[in-house]
């Protein structure tokens, strides 16, 4: 690039200046790239896309309806109140309404409630008055209170005409008019079910004498048990007739 050529073609210097500029720019670019590469220690860890928002959840992104950009919005009607939330346990509700109807005073529930310290326990002698038929008494050898409270039942054992008799009674049955504790067991039974009393050496036999004594005592009290007496007298008469 001589001076002579410059004087001969005045615009040639412009071309040369532009070339110079381009070369410098390229050099600058390469220098900046080199600087950036030196800063990044682990290029593989560099993010290629902008980072997600702070509230982003991967589990939500996988759900197909999370992002519906550019689509027509589908209206969703609001839900009506749920009966399931209003009544989470319908079985308990039905059972409770049954029990409240069958046991309005709550006496039967209390007699066998775990919270009641004076509750009837296994080993006690109980008397069950029935709506139809004679009252039955015996030693309570099992109290069944499963998941279904309405089906709570007691198993009474007695001897009738020297034959062992066991009867199950549902405590909430409308056929059961009342349950009375005739005699409590002296010592707390150490079993939940006293099935050993079926064995001859443990069998207490008939409890009729104890029950008769209890009824006689009660007859003098304020709650006169005329009905029970009548029932017994009828029985005696019938027996006599049978013998004759």
């Amino acid at each position, binding site marked *: 690039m001589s001076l002579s050529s410059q004087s001969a073609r005045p615009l040639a210097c412009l071309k040369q200046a532009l070339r110079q500029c381009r070369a410098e720019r390229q050099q600058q670019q390469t220098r900046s790239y080199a600087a950036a590469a030196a800063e990044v220690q682990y290029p593989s860890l560099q993010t290629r896309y902008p980072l997600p928002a702070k509230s982003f959840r991967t589990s939500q992104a996988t*759900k*197909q*309806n*999370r992002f*519906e950009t550019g*689509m027509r919005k*589908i*209206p*969703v*009607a*609001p*839900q*009506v109140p*749920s*009966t*399931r939330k*209003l*009544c989470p*346990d*319908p*079985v308990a*509700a*039905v*059972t409770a309404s*049954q029990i409240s*109807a*069958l046991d309005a005073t709550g006496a039967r529930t209390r007699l066998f409630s775990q919270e009641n310290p004076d509750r009837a326990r296994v080993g006690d002698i109980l008397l069950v008055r029935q*709506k139809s038929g004679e009252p039955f008494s015996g030693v309570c050898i099992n109290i069944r209170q499963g998941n*279904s409270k*309405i*089906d709570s039942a007691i198993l009474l054992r007695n001897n009738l005409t020297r034959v062992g008799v066991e009867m199950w009674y*549902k405590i*909430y*049955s*409308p*056929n059961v008019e009342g349950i009375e504790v005739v005699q409590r067991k002296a010592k707390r039974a150490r079993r939940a079910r006293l099935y050993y009393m079926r064995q001859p050496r443990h069998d207490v036999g008939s409890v009729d004498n104890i029950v008769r004594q209890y009824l006689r005592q009660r007859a003098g009290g304020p709650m006169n048990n005329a009905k029970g007496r009548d029932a017994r007298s009828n029985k005696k008469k019938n027996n006599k007739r049978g013998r004759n």
Partner: protein
Amino acid sequence: MPPRQATTRLFALPPRFLCPSLPVTQTRTIRSILKPIPKPSRFNASQSLPVLGSSHTAAFERKEHVMPLRTGALAIKKGMTAIFDPETAKRTPCTVLQLDRCQVVSHKRRDVHGYWAVQVGAGAKEARNVTRPERGHFAAQGVPLSRELAEFRVKNEAGLPPIGSKITADLFIPGQFIDARANRRGMGFEGGMKRHNFSGQPASHGNSLAHRLMGSSGGGQGSGSRVLPGKKMPGRMGGEQMTVANLKVMQVDKENGIVVVAGAVPGPKNCVVKLQDAIKKPWPDATWPPAIETVTEPLREATEKAPAAA
């Protein structure tokens, strides 16, 4: 040529040996006596033609008289308890079912779909868990999203409640009978004794390792030496829909959505049960619904509010 004309003209014609070119009618059969059966044209689809027995229309008409008049309800089986009758002291084991957000989602119409049915939804789902097509179906009807969907066939258009009607427990009247349909409990692979009530084999008398086997599966050479199709054998038991018919409705609680029916209902606890009027009993004397409550009102309010807000 019809043969009858030939026979009537027989004596009008000269003897056969004089005109051998005439066609011979030698046999007289039932065809020559009977009127010719009109051949159905492919384009002969008039109203007067009888309905073919194997068609959809004939099947619909056959079933029409057992179709319930009213819709059913989708319920959840909650468990069992017992109810005492205070007068007779009779104890009845009962199943407690609950109706949760049961609603009429859509109709199936005879002219469009070929039958009359009510599409009923129950429960609820979150919108983000529902696909767009499904959300579109509910949005088109203007009802909230339901977790379960089922159809209840009805006899005619009168049995279709308006879309969006709430189906409450008082659909059923205490004392009426219903049919309960649900998927049975899955038993897995079971033997013939449990699955088909086979008798099994003796415990003793020389029996060895074959006490619960199904025994023979068919005859030998004289019977084809093969197992006939449909032979009851061990296999997968349960997990399929079954119907328990004629369950008596004991109690109904509209507020809590409780329906108590006498007896057992198929399926485990918390399974979905389809309840509808029993088809083997007289229809209940009910004109349901007494006052239609709809679930579509909230949506209308919401959609009216939305453009105003935007």
